């Protein structure tokens, strides 16, 4: 048997990330095993729930490595848990694919750590590119103070000037906040604002979107890839969400993707399988886990062995692997393997996703 480990935020504040991620892994392992495993060997998946607690994540990493003796780890739903367990995988020499957003995970590159989601910096770049196209140069930001929101805010502030964008209002809200009208009122009252960007995930962006429409602010609103799921539209409500743009992945627009798009097939397959099995809509986050698993399986197949060292090398040599998020090509100094092209600018229209451009 090949033992693969995962530690994900299946519960706790990031459970809407960890839950679909864990479900995806479970589903894919079943699938692979049903098809005869990898190189004839069955996969045994050992999953732990770290509840987004970095200390727990680290302990589970040790457990996976020392006690369960896995050959690779997928996990870290959040940046905090990922950074916490990295020293452990590094010391033990176990390949690890993170599902978290921050650029700090792969920059600087650590030998055993890879990741599948676009970085928050790329999300900023994608958004700013779109703003530039629309001739927007002065924006307000309202960010969640949780890990994802805070980190993306920082990245956005860093790259804004590259796109000639001025952030002239900078507000935030806590992870459990239920009302953002005061912050939005301030943004609204700031002179010259042309658009608003909201980095964050969870219920926050949905509330922001609703408050935005309550206050009658009719400037373009941008969200991050942190809310790229049908759930977001449902929560915000079709009306409030109308016209919101965000950088997303092919997964969300599986149905309207041109048939010749390289991702179409894989995206639709995953979507159908997941939605059938779990009776809930797919999310980008499950997609990250999907990609991580595919990358890992491909690497093990290629390495022809389940030696961690060999797997790591094989991952690093991955090239042109098509996933739900994009097409991955890793190298010794790129452990993300995606570029901006894999990001699609999406807009919500009539309660559904449409591709901008």
């Amino acid at each position, binding site marked *: 048997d090949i033992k693969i480990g995962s530690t994900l935020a*299946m*519960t*706790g*504040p990031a*459970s*809407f990330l960890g*839950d679909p991620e864990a479900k995806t892994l479970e589903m894919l392992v079943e699938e692979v095993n049903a098809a005869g495993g990898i190189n004839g060997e069955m996969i045994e998946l050992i999953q732990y729930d770290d509840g987004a607690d970095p200390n727990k994540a680290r302990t589970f990493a040790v457990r996976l490595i020392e006690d369960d003796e896995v050959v690779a780890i997928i996990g870290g739903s959040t940046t905090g848990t990922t950074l916490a367990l990295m020293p452990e995988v590094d010391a033990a020499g176990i390949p690890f694919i993170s599902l978290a957003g921050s650029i700090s995970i792969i920059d600087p590159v650590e030998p055993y750590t890879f990741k599948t989601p676009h970085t928050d910096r790329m999300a900023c770049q994608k958004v700013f590119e779109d703003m530039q196209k629309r001739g927007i140069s002065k924006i307000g930001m309202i960010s969640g*103070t949780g890990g994802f929101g805070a980190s993306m805010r920082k990245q956005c502030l860093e790259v804004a000037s590259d796109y000639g964008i001025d952030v002239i209002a900078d*507000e*935030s*809200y*806590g992870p*459990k906040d*239920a*009302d953002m*009208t*005061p*912050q939005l*009122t*301030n943004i609204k*009252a700031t002179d010259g604002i042309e658009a608003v960007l909201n980095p964050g995930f*969870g*219920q926050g962006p*949905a*509330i922001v979107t*609703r408050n935005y429409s*309550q*206050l*009658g602010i009719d400037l373009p609103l941008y969200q991050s890839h942190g809310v790229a799921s049908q*759930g977001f539209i*449902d*929560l915000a*409500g079709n*009306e*409030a969400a109308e016209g919101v743009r965000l950088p997303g992945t092919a997964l969300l627009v599986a149905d309207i993707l041109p048939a010749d798009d390289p991702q179409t097939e894989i995206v639709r397959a995953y979507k159908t399988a997941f939605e059938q099995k779990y009776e*809930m809509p797919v999310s980008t986050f499950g997609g990250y886990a999907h990609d991580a698993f595919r990358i890992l399986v491909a690497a093990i197949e290629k390495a022809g062995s389940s030696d961690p060292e060999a797997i790591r090398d094989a991952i690093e040599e991955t090239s042109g692997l098509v996933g739900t998020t994009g097409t991955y090509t890793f190298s010794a100094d790129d452990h993300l393997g995606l570029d901006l092209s894999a990001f699609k600018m999406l807009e919500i229209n009539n309660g559904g996703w449409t591709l901008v451009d």
Partner: protein
Amino acid sequence: MPELMQFLLSGLTVGAVYALVALGFTIIYNASDVVNFAQGEFVMLGGMITVFAYGAGAPLPLAAAVAILTTVFVGVALNKLAIEPARGAPVVSLIIITIGASILIRGVTQIVFDKQIHRFPAFTGDAPIPFFGATLLPQSLWVVGGALTVFVGLYLFFTKTLTGKAVLATANNRLAAQLVGINTGWVMTLSFGLSAAIGALAGVLVTPITLTSYDVGIGLALKGFAAAMLGGMGNPKGALVGGLLLGVIEAMTAGYLSSQYKDAAAFVVILAVLFAMPQGLFGAKSTERV
């Protein structure tokens, strides 16, 4: 001054949410001196059960009724199965039981339902109501109205009814309460039932605004607890005022000072109030002679 008005409206809405949770604490506290840390889970259950009942096709009022009744059942069961059997245990032990209960309820909810965030439609639409240059959602009126109604009900209950007095007597001196013929077990059941009902009602009212998921309970319980302490634990007036005040302080801080530190500002105010009034704004000073 439309900004000020907007901050105020926003503060009052959020404050009413806190007040509803704080009011829920009041009864169990008054009956047993226990701050029921599972109170937030009652709110969560109210919201989540409504979501799923509504999703299953029940009309909203029916879904809400189902949610409230189910939550009352959970509250009563909590009392019967956990609090009653531990009778006579130190108050800290009882509090830990309620913390355990909150973890259990959350754990079961995530299995029975799911871990996603949910919402159901506002009772009377989402069209913003303009108000002196600011806007307000119709659902906010429901929440504020709900908080006021619960407040009035509780206030009358504790000041005008013998049963209300029996509840207070039970917490004050359980032994004496038994001696005057109060069925203290029943008082506890009643208290948990009522608290659960108030909690669930809060959940039903606020979910269209705050959204809900299996784990919203802790956050709400925490804010409700802070609000209750600010107003003075056990006093419905305190719960109402404490909740509203907390909401307004947060909104004003977010609006005028820093949205990052609005929770901090709220706690700074609480600390300041407690230094001047160690029993909160309306807390009864208990007189124990020596």
